[in-house]
């Protein structure tokens, strides 16, 4: 876990994640904007693809390693690597050392892992980001990804950021810390269980009647957002980077 008060870097890398790349590029662009506004130079290596987690979690570790290996060389030096996803951040930070155990790239993997930050973690703990909320009053429900919560230990950071937005009211909902049922390939392999889980999640969120559901992980947002939309709910979903940028962009 990151120590409070880490020296403020001049330059950071962005690992954009494959889901953001295809489905939520706004979240990636808004991440860059937020970081640049803080005076940081943001480098986005174009050779990046995916952290390898889908194959890793499915037990196909040789395949995951082939993909992970492609990422390893893209972030040379000591600059922090910012990941706008708790799940992908955890893959890079906590699972790469396991994935490369006994492999020649282990040292390189560890060197990368040590520099990985989940976005909200970095904004709060390293940048201590101050936010001047210019948006209208808004009721926001926050869904925290399970890996952000239990592997990265950063659930509090997204809460802190929302609480720094003067006109945002954070609304709690029932069983807030329970998984939404995404689980990567789980949503497909165990579609009926996943459907039951996201159904319950949508019911709980709807009962709290927020204007918006935000989260730090696009997997959860696709899952919950898709189910909300299918059910005809007016509640939209947004990545926290986009919410933070939109409400503070003068």
């Amino acid at each position: 876990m990151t120590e409070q008060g880490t020296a403020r870097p001049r330059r950071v890398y962005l690992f954009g994640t494959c889901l953001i790349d295809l489905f939520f590029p706004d979240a990636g662009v808004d991440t860059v904007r937020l970081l640049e506004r803080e005076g940081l130079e943001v480098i986005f290596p174009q050779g990046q693809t995916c952290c390898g987690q889908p194959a890793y979690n499915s037990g196909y570790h040789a395949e995951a390693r082939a993909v992970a290996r492609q990422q390893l060389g893209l972030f040379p030096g000591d600059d922090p690597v910012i990941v706008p996803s708790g799940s992908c951040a955890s893959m890079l930070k906590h699972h790469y050392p396991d994935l490369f155990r006994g492999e020649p790239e282990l040292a390189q993997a560890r060197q990368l892992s040590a520099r990985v930050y989940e976005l909200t973690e970095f904004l709060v703990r390293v940048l201590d980001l101050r936010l001047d909320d210019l948006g209208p009053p808004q009721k926001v429900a926050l869904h925290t990804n399970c890996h952000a919560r239990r592997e990265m230990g950063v659930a509090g950071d997204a809460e802190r950021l929302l609480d720094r937005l003067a006109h945002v009211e954070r609304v709690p909902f029932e069983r807030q810390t329970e998984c939404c049922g995404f689980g990567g390939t789980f949503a497909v392999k165990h579609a009926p269980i996943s459907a039951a889980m996201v159904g319950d999640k949508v019911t709980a969120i709807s009962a709290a009647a927020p204007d918006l559901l935000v989260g730090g992980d696009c997997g959860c947002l696709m899952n919950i957002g898709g189910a909300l939309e299918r059910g005809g709910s007016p509640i939209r979903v947004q990545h926290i980077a986009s919410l933070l940028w939109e409400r503070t962009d003068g």
Partner: protein
Amino acid sequence: MADASRQFHERIQQALDDPQIRANFRRAMDGLMHKRAAVFPDADELERLRDLGAAVRRNALARLPDLLERLEANCVRNGMQVHWAETVAQANAIVLDIVRRHGGKSVIKGKSMVSEEMELNHHLQAHGIEALESDLGEYIVQLAGETPSHIIMPAIHKNTRQIAELFVDKLDGVEFTADAEQLTAIARNLLRRKFYDADVGLSGVNFAIAETGTLVLVENEGNGRLTTTTPNVHIAVTGIEKVIETLEEVTPLLSLLPRSATGQAITTYVNLISGPRRPGERDGPREVHLVLLDNGRTASYADPETRTTLQCIRCGACMNHCPVYARIGGHAYGTVYPGPIGEILSPQLLGCDQAGALPGASTLCGACGEVCPVRIPIPKMLVRMRREAVNRDPASAFRDSGAQRRLGEAAIWKAWARIHATPGLYSLVTRTATAFKKLPVLGPLKAWSSVRTPPRTAGKTLHQRLAARERQS
């Protein structure tokens, strides 16, 4: 085998389609989670206690062969008879032999998951010996002709009304009552006589203490004490992993087990069994036997990673907190041990052919690992056992590694890896995908779209947008 996997999916669907199952488990699991949280009010203290519990279990496993030898020597010194069983068949034969030697016709049982592993009741019944469960939950499950759906609360899948109906249906002269206390009294009265009539009492073991040769057994109903003291012969069956070194080490584990399991500070009964009736003593069994069962545990032990599975103290907290277990219940897993611990233990004990699909039934949300009182890295082990399930490895310690590998799926992952390990190819594929606003609803997207709108690709990828941004600046 495709059959085991298919049957697993069928049982899941049946459970999801049963509103009573969904409601019973949700209510029960909510209650258990709440109770556990209430009994661990201090987060720091809980973490310290978990550290201690994990250390005790890890240290014990690190010296397992040595501790087992000491356990045997000290149990024998206490007058117990110790038996080793590599397989469930051997364990069953040992138990049957002991019962027969005493001309036994009936066995009264305390709760024992290892005896479930052995399917002991069937075995004894097949040889004309009655085996009667005396734990209330187990009694209910036995009456219903079912198996336990939870390792601590075997009948948790039934609500009071269902139990009342079962009693009316199966027991002579019982009137319908939905009052839990009255139902308990009915079972208590029926069982009381059985303790005195039984030739043999059979129990499990929570912890076996090597240095003193003591068997620790926790329970809430007193049936464990009656089972282990009233009949002339007591047989304790347990897995070889349950040994710990010292009596002192029981303390943190006793603090953790009931709190994690049922939210109790301590169980109503804590039995420390240290041998048969001694000369001059007026009660207690005349013989105590300890049956130590391997049944695949040595394979788990051989690998330092899977060895962590053996740290388990069978509290059930992982299932109580599992969002998947809460929705499908224990029977859907089709194995003795359900829930997260069952998903990692079952493939180790039974092999990947029979149980290799189980670890897939998890979102890897980590709720299980977060509450495990002895810090078993369950999520990590779920991934490990998934790997065992889809990769044929002759060096694997576990039976049928790779049994869940499907050609089509393996080919998809190969292609996926090729695309994502080749930036040029990845760029081509993602640019093509974003050219279509909607992805074709085929294959995996079909399952996804049953309850969700299909994901819509953005007009341009993040790669494209950031490249354009760089060109502008």
